[in-house]
């Protein structure tokens, strides 16, 4: 069991998941703008 490695990876894993949200948020804004401009 690599408990130290696990504890070290937790912040990176959470940041990684948050980054997915951030990119998706940018994509959502992009789509909303496209829908608004090209009705």
């Amino acid at each position, binding site marked *: 069991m690599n408990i130290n490695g696990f504890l070290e990876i937790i912040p*990176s*894993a*959470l940041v*990684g998941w948050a980054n*997915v949200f951030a*990119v*998706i948020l940018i994509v959502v804004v992009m789509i909303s703008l496209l*829908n608004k401009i090209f009705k």
Partner: protein
Amino acid sequence: MEILFENLMLIEWKMVIMWIIGGVLIYLAIKKNMEPSLLLPMGFGAILVNLPLSGAVTQGTEVGILDVLFNACVSNELFPLLLFVGIGAMIDFTPLLQNPKLMLFGAAAQFGIFFTLGAATLLGFELKDAASIAVIGAADGPTSIFVANHFNSNYLGAIMVAAYSYMALVPIIQPPVIKLITSKKERRIRMEYTEKKVSKTTKILFPIFLTVIAGLISPQSVALVGFLMFGNLIRECGVLDSLSETAQKVLANLVTLFLGITVAARMQADAFLSVETLMILGLGLVAFVFDTFGGVMVAKFLNIFLKKKINPMIGAAGISAFPMSARVINKMGLEEDNQNFLLMHSICVNVSGQIASVIAGGLILKMFG
């Protein structure tokens, strides 16, 4: 007469176990209709490569054809990327473009990837192998292969078996998890659907802009996202119908035909039969369970603030197993309330899961590459 039987003396018990595993994969493909396009070639390939002194794989200086195919088409990520062109051409992103806010659940349902990253690290896997195993949670074969190859993971065979098996088992894995973390009242929440018009220009610009955004954020993901979106652009442009049809049918089928049997080159007994393989199969299940958990829990969290509640089950459709997960959620909704049609919402979330899983894969490559 000896020449007929000398190879029989070289059979080892590990080879026999791999024949059985290959047989099980073939059985699941044919009898249970579980991802037959991949499990059947993988099962047959597992038998091919585990015959004594098999000519299908490299023996000494004699290079086997499966190793030729693997080096030419899998280790350089060619097959998964070509498959993505076909997949992109198959997907209609219109439901997503009509209701982009639901994309958040696609992101939420990638939680299993990052949870499994921690679990795999805890179990002692090296970081790059842990990252490769975690991407089973993307529920997307080409992404799993791409990332595992990029990291030179030794567990490609096990990762593929896990990814494709669990994708086929989504109708069995998701419902118990969803029922455990939602109440009957939540599962009966109705969601209205209003069809919105999406312009052709938007459908054409979407794949281009998405590729640029993803590529600027994570250059390592340009090939993955780019090929998926290229396939979609061919579909949506309206002037390349024959190319779109070729990508959806001929290209996708051709690559699928060879991909499964080629990956079996990494299912030789010595590499496949190990405690690590069992752990990977377990971690793959963990990834899918926590994908479902993440999607549903984010929906429940948002419902705290929303006046018009979301049925939290649609969060589970953010897993990239398209369209199976969407159908599972719709069926569960109808079981609770036979007038509650969640299909269009769950399809939207399911399609967004495809994009989110590729983005998650790209971010994993960037963070740990």
